[in-house]
């Protein structure tokens, strides 16, 4: 038997495979397809202080090996999460984390504080990188000063695992990673979506109601992998890698580049069972390559 268990600081994952926020609903949507307890963890939809209707239709466009989305953090707000959703999902035998978003620092702080009270939520993922909201969102993740501020304030009220999700739409992602590490982040996850756009040549209209949106899927994988590799070398906290992972081979590449855990996003839409297939595929890879502990693969890229 191979060991798949990894640790994000004190947070134990039975295996390195998590699913990405906004692509996995509240987990329940996948309960028909997989046993959620087979996952290392999953991250629920972006949750904000108050109810948000999200952006108008159309919110999605297909692109070469990927998609653009402009959902815009549609959610019923953190109170609804705590009262209605949490009771339904709290007993899944895996790490259920909440993706926390906001447009002002106070919102992040209040949301995080409320989630801090939920016993069965071992951590939050602070989303300072959403490209689909007018105010805040990505702006926090594109300058060190604002990234520092929001992490510092949230850290004051949030006592459990604080993962910070970074934006790829920056000149130097390592400086942002170091900035949030400096304010007490327990781990960083990357990448969120790349800012992109699509136009329908026939109608001359943008394909998204918001004109620009977030690009995800295998098309972004080379950029994601590069950033994970750069950040893993720059920070001391664990790195969670994502962006275009479609299969176990992709997942292994992120781990070799330095990711302690990985997240599956867009791939869930195409194959709702892909996350558990990837757990199995990583195990097969380890057996084939005679690696008994997954931790031996983390950052094990061979640069000789």
């Amino acid at each position: 038997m191979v060991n798949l268990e990894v640790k994000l600081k004190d947070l134990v994952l039975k295996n390195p495979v998590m699913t990405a926020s906004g692509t996995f609903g509240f987990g329940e949507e996948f309960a028909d397809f997989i046993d959620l307890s087979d996952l290392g963890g999953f991250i629920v939809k972006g949750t904000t202080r108050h109810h948000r209707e999200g952006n108008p239709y159309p919110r999605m466009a297909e692109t070469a090996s990927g998609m653009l989305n402009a959902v815009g953090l549609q959610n019923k707000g953190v109170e609804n999460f705590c009262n209605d959703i949490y009771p339904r999902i709290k007993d899944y035998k895996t790490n259920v984390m909440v993706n926390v978003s906001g447009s002002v620092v106070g919102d992040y702080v209040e949301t995080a504080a409320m989630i801090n009270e939920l016993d069965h939520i071992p951590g939050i993922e602070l989303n300072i990188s959403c490209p689909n909201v007018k105010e805040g969102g990505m702006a926090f993740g594109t300058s060190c000063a604002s990234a520092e501020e929001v992490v510092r304030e949230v850290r004051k009220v949030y006592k459990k695992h604080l993962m910070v999700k970074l934006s790829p739409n920056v000149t130097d992602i390592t400086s942002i990673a170091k900035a949030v590490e400096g304010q007490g982040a327990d781990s960083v996850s990357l990448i969120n979506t790349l800012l992109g756009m699509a136009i329908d040549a026939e109608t001359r209209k943008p394909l998204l109601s918001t004109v620009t949106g977030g690009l995800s899927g295998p098309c972004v994988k080379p950029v994601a992998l590069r950033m994970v590799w750069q950040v893993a070398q720059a920070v001391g906290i664990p790195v969670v890698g994502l962006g275009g992972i479609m299969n176990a081979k992709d997942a292994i590449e992120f781990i070799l580049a330095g990711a302690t855990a990985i997240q599956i996003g867009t791939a869930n839409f195409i194959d709702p069972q892909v996350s558990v297939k990837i757990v199995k595929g990583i195990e097969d890879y380890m057996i084939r390559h005679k690696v008994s502990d997954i931790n031996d693969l983390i950052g094990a890229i061979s640069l000789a």
Partner: protein
Amino acid sequence: MKKLIQDFELIKYKELNCEHFVLDIKAKEALPEILPGQFVNVKVDNNSSVFLRRPLSIHNVDYERNVIQLFVKRVGEGTKSLGELKIGDTLSVVYPLGNAFSIPKNAKTLLIGGGCGVAPLLYLSKFLHQAGNEVTIILGVRSAHDSVSLEAYKPYGRVLVTTEDGSQGEKGYPTQHSVLTNESFDYSFTCGPEPMMKAVAAYSKANDVTCEVSLENMMACGFGACLCCVTDTKKGNKCVCTEGPIFNIKDLKW
């Protein structure tokens, strides 16, 4: 209803006209219960520019042979490539997705379909017929050449046709058919181009007919995980893939 992901085998391909074709796909296992109005989400493997699955209504179900029928219109790369599959090819299908049309009892029902919007109406007419309803189906097409497979509907009700060029049935759009003025109905069900559905909705409102429409939308997942497929309703944004695709027009802002 439990959703499944399964491999189906293409067992029959029928070209209807230059735009439309019907696929018969067969599962290895027994099919789960499938309701009229529900859809499947299929993976297109034979085209490099298609990334996401493609949603298609369930046109008909044959439980005995584990066969689902899909009625497809070629509009872009994905649907074109589905039409190029060979018999024996495998198709990955996520299903059954979405809600269903309501099935009244012993009522006068009107089904109006245009273009590939006829897709869900065949299976629906079967259910309506079985529940003892009087079923009238109006299929609107461009010309006689496009009106196809009418026979399939006949066991379940009266089939009327409108053609834009008058080459078969009445001339005009399906919503202009004389039966709409000459008779009255309790329920209407429609699927097709939005302008047509809106015309059916307007007619239904004016005549106090309960009306359900099948909406389309850009979908990434098809089962409620991505929130990409919302439509703006009187109760806020609703997911077309889980809270639809069937909507009662009283909930829409139409």
